[in-house]
């Protein structure tokens, strides 16, 4: 963290573009507000919803769905006049529905693109919790506590069909002392456009130049043709498909880690940008996100894949609520604001997050989210 800060300072000082932009402006404006603003709960955020019945609708991310459902039930218990309907339709549909105004809250694993924001400048993406993505595998004969070490280069080789067997020397070289079976590698990927695919291919692109050059990263990519490779729908499909396929390798949202473990799947320790191998734990995810806290911009749009923390897990992200800051009625706006504020505070308690293995938002990010929530009106 400290090293990264120093590097950032040095690089910023020598970058001519910075100087050209900052010095010639002559506008006397303050520095870029990259640090968290003071907590704004209380400033524009109501303590609770208005009296009278309110129905809030939510749809989107399948990864966020279980947590959103738990939140909806708990919030209804506390505020009986507020009912929240939830649906798992995918991040893309969540963004589209919220942008079109057909739902009150869209849930997304990814922040809004610039194209989304230009089309719908009233939309906000507000982090609700910290998520991560694990790489699962179904490799027969491994000891239960084993977390195979994998990196982007090896995973890229597996997904482009260059590594076809689990006992390939390149995998073995990363895992000394582990007996690997001669089982065929079966890469699974998502059939539909997916935030998880974006995260996983981003990781591959960051660690493997050839993957970046040929395939790249996106919510949808042209997967290299690999004999036996399969496309699955949703995280549920990925877990189920992997359970049923010895030799599989699959990328899955952290909320499904418990399900994957129960199904006998292993999960990898992934190499981060500093060369260390980390498994997705509360600590490694928290450390990874912590290295981005001070850099998170005020609109909270930030990609955190491949972060700089040596003790951090490399594939982490915020789970976002996509909301319009212009609501049809004051009562609706108040209900949305109160619920979202509750979600990032009381809703970030372990009793809710642990069941999906999400991590709570760091305090400065809560402040940033509150500042965004306060804009809803």
């Amino acid at each position, binding site marked *: 963290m400290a090293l990264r800060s120093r590097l950032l300072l040095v690089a*910023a000082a020598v970058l*001519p*573009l910075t100087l050209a932009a900052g010095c010639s*402006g002559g506008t006397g404006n303050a520095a870029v507000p990259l640090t968290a603003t003071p907590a704004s709960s209380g400033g524009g955020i109501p303590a609770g919803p208005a009296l009278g019945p309110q129905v809030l609708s939510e749809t989107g991310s399948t990864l966020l769905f279980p947590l959103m459902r738990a939140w909806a039930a708990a919030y209804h218990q506390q505020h009986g006049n507020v009912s929240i309907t939830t649906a798992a339709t995918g991040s893309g549909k969540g963004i589209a529905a919220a942008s079109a105004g057909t739902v009150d809250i869209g849930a997304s694993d990814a922040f809004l693109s610039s194209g989304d924001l230009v089309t719908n400048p009233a939309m906000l993406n507000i982090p609700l919790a910290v998520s991560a993505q694990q790489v699962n595998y179904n490799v027969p004969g491994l000891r239960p506590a084993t977390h195979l070490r994998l990196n982007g280069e090896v995973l890229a080789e597996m997904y482009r069909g260059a590594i076809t067997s689990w006992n390939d020397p390149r995998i073995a070289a990363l895992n000394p002392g582990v007996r690997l079976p001669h089982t065929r590698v079966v890469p699974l990927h998502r059939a539909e456009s997916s935030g998880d695919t974006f995260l996983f291919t981003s990781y591959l*692109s960051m660690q493997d130049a050839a993957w970046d050059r040929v395939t*790249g990263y996106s919510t949808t990519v*042209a997967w290299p043709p690999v004999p036996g490779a399969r496309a699955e729908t949703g995280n549920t499909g990925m877990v189920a498909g992997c359970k049923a396929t010895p030799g599989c390798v699959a990328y899955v949202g952290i909320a499904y880690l418990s399900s994957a473990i129960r199904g006998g799947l292993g999960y990898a320790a992934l190499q981060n940008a500093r060369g260390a191998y980390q498994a997705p734990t509360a600590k490694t995810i928290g450390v990874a996100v912590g290295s981005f806290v001070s*850099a998170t911009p005020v609109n909270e749009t*930030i990609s955190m894949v491949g972060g700089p923390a040596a003790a951090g897990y490399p594939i982490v992200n915020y789970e976002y609520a996509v909301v319009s800051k212009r609501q049809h009625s004051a009562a609706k706006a108040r209900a949305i604001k109160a619920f979202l504020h509750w979600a990032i505070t009381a809703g970030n308690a372990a009793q809710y997050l642990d069941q999906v293995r999400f991590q709570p938002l760091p305090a400065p990010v809560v402040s940033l989210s509150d500042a965004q929530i306060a804009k809803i009106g």
Partner: protein
Amino acid sequence: MVTTPAQQPAPPGQPAPGQPPAPDAPGQPPAAGAPGWQPPAGAGAPASPPARWRTQATVPARLRILLITLLIAVAAFGAVGAWTVIQHASAARDVVSTSEPLSLAAQRMYQDLSDADGTATTAFVAGPNVPLAARERYAADIARAAADLTRLQNAATTAGNPRLVRGLAAVAAGLPVYAGYVSQAQTEFLLGYRLTAGSFMQVASEEMHLALLPAARASYAQENAALTAASARATGLPWIVVVLVLAIALGFVLYRAQRWLSGSTHRVFNLGLLAASVALAVSVLWLLIAFAVARTDLQRGVGHGSVPAEALAQAAIDTQQARGYQVLNLISRSGAATFVKDFQAIRAELGPGPGTLLATAAAASTGAGARWATAAAHDVQRWYTVIDRGYALDDKAQYTAETALAIGPGAGGSTAGFARVEADLSRAIDADHAVFHANATAGRDAFSGLDVVIIVAAVLMAAGCAWGLSRRLVEYR
């Protein structure tokens, strides 16, 4: 000499030989209806002339009243005429020396900001080490935008335009924020965190598209409206009509006075009043010609210069935005659907086609401006084809090919296509600005010296009236 012997004024109180007694000779007012009495020529017969005439003043008194009336009318014509000319000349000078440069500065700031964003995003996609040319272009864009912003802020503060001050303050507030995000993106990229860098680049671009460009566009619209208003003030008709009405009234009084004097004194001309009439005619003619020339020039300047230049400037912004969306999609990689939607909206506004920016510009421009606007309309369609191909590749997840098409150096790529359209538009804008400047300058120059002409003419008219009528008054002493 313009009087005939038969028309020599008779000695006061005596009729000239062979002539009836002069009416109202001092000391001998003729009785109403008496021989030799004549009503004022052209005055029209009053209902009961003798009764009215008895109540009228004597000839010297009437001459004095006439003189005072003429002097007042001349003063009114001179004052209103000179004031009107000064107002129009001032507005024409304002068009050339204030409004046009400010409008140009606002337009340049708007375009520079947009170009800075396009340059920064394109350079970002090319890699962590920003090419020197892109670095210089970005730095120049930001520097020019900042300089124009300062100039516009000073002018808006001086002019006491709070709305414009607020809009420019939004640009001033957003510019360092934008530049900060860009530098943060480049720093993260240099450190190897490309995805984080990409998200900062997107945040920067969003700041540009959602805050800076709308504020800059509003400022440009206000400056352009001020230019149009200044041009309208310089070419406005109401006060010119007032001056003309005054001139006609003055001319009528002069004419009637000369008719009256001619009829009552049997002199064909009164030199003083004749000189005043000539001065009036010359000044009015000069005023009309100068005003017509200025009005024609300024209206041509606006219609064939600033109007198409405004449309072309917006077209240039649109092409930069279309280019920006194409490049941002390469960074965003989260589905091209909304970028395609935004691109189609821009395409519909940009044209070509009826009612589009390029069609408007081509129709309003003349000469080189029209030629380059037409060329832009042609080249932009070829560029659209390349962009469409790029988004089609995106649909198929052919990102390498899409990136090569979008930012590659090939002649058939988007970079080259965009550069062609940009060059066409830039030349068309320059040509239209030249048209505007030449016409506005000619319009301004048409007013040169006109205020002096009006004042000198008024002085001459006053002197002529005073001299011409005082000669008549002297005859009664």
